[in-house]
């Protein structure tokens, strides 16, 4: 059934890594096949941060094919070589796990589409996120396991969205885990709870328009759908409103950009969402207990209605 959570601090930064971990852990009963974080951290905004993977987590419960770890090193080498060829300078490199890497890149990116296509043309390599603030971290296991594995509890930033996944229609692997990067847009991410029934029709149309899909997870469609609308000049809110009719099925989803956070609920309101809104904080999740993990005191919350779209700025 999956659970989603998100929060945005308005006018200040906070320990969003720890806060989101608490929210997602409160929702772990909704699925702990995998957990993902999209964190918008405090950075100087000069360099791009690229989170990417060169392989899958093939641990217990994974549906991925076991690979020799040595291929990860080979793929990393090709990535480094490709970045050098494009004139991108790696300022800082972190390899949290053999298959998961974080690069800070000094590069005057004119076209993230072309950049991403070149990196992802390397077999087995997928960019999880690309942006000057956004970092997408996703892996198998519940929120605490992923948070501990990647030391996310100390990440400071303004907003974040996350997802606790119960795999239903695609594999238990990182590529099918949420959040999805709004490829090829810098700093756009999406999490979704629900099921889209016109996934393949939309996918064919969008692929013909040059958009890319990395998984067969229906939720990825939302990220690509909105990214395509924004590519054509729509604002985030306009793209989200268009999705209410363009996407068929049941859904509640969040989209985050560098300076905003939005939610949309389908016209049947079939998927849950509880929302808390104040002048300096918006917190929302599939269940109230997620919000309670950051706001234990008595608060006023509500369920957004069917067909509702809301966007908040930091």
């Amino acid at each position: 059934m999956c659970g989603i959570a998100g929060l945005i601090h308005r006018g200040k930064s906070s320990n969003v890594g720890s806060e989101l971990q608490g929210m997602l852990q409160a929702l772990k009963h909704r699925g702990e096949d995998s957990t993902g974080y999209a964190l918008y951290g405090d950075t100087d905004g000069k360099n791009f941060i690229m989170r990417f993977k060169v392989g899958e987590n093939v641990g217990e419960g994974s549906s991925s094919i076991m690979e020799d770890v040595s291929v990860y090193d080979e793929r990393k080498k090709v990535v480094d070589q490709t970045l050098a060829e494009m004139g991108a300078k790696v300022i800082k490199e972190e390899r949290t796990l053999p298959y998961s890497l974080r690069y800070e890149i000094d590069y005057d990116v004119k076209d993230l589409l072309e950049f991403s296509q070149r990196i992802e043309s390397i077999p087995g390599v997928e960019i999880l996120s690309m942006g000057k603030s956004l970092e997408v971290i996703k892996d198998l296991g519940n929120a605490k396991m992923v948070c501990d594995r990647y030391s996310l509890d100390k990440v400071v930033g303004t907003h974040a969205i996350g997802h606790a996944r119960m795999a239903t229609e695609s594999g238990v692997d990182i590529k099918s885990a949420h959040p999805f990067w709004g490829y090829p847009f810098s700093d756009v991410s999406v999490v979704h709870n629900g099921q889209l029934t016109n996934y393949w029709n939309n996918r064919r149309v969008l692929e013909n328009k040059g958009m890319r899909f990395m998984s067969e997870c229906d939720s990825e469609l939302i990220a690509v759908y909105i990214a395509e609308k924004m590519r054509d000049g729509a604002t985030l809110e306009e793209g989200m409103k268009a999705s209410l009719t363009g996407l068929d099925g049941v859904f509640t989803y969040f989209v985050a950009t560098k300076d905003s956070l939005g939610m949309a609920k389908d016209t049947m309101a079939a998927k849950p969402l509880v929302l808390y809104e104040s002048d300096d904080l918006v917190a929302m999740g599939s269940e109230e207990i997620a919000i309670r993990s950051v706001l234990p005191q008595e608060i006023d919350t509500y369920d957004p209605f069917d067909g509702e779209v809301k966007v908040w700025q930091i």
Partner: protein
Amino acid sequence: MANLKTVSKKSKAQSMGMHTEVLTGRTQQKFFNPDEAENFYYFGTYDVDFNKRTDLDVKDMTAPEANKEIDNLMSQGYGTIVIKNPQGKHSLGVGILNKLNLIFEGSLGYFGMGSCDGPIVRINGRVGWSCAENLMAGKVVIEKNAGSCFGAAIRGGDLICKGSVGARTGIDMKGGTIIIGGDAGAFTGFMMQRGRIIILGDVGINLGDSMYDGTIFVGGEIGSYGSDAVDSELTSSDQDWLKRKLKVAEIGENFDVSKMKKIVAGKKLWNYDNLEPTEKKGAI
């Protein structure tokens, strides 16, 4: 066609004492004699004193632990229990088949007060999805907002939300009254079969979709009507009943009920007869 009243042959079930009610139509069917109500009790219910009051802090309890403790307190005769720090936990207060004054100082998560019969409950916060599902009798008052499927499949009692509620309020309800002080979401009264829903505010799309029976009263705007939901005349007795109910519900006492819309089933989707299976067998 055989006359049902003259069918005298008893089935095996009837000879065992089952299906012995006098059937004079589904709506008049009596399930037990009110005169014998004193002898009617649930197994495991307690004789409680409403003046015997206690607090229960559930902050560090799981829902099963909290529910077990409520049961334990009732067994000690406590008739008024105040629950502190519910903090949005799911399934609190479920399955209470007892007379009881229950007060939650805070909000509940999903399935709060589900499958209850008899308690009077006040929740000084918000409730999540499916609050008071399958309520048989009693009264549940929510001071703030409620999630979707509010009062799903209730059979009786009064369910009152002073704020707004989500989608599918009163879905499949078979009796009782649901009163909403604010707005209600899409598919309110979806497939309802009996009972009444009162909404003082606006209501979303597909109101009363595929309702079999029952009545919905709306004070505000209606997003759209569902399949087979139609307007009906608001009678003076309807208005009197609405005034009484709103007064009891402590909301909308000054609300002008004469301007409310009344929605009922058009009954164009009715494609079934009203015979019990045993009756049908006799008819054939």
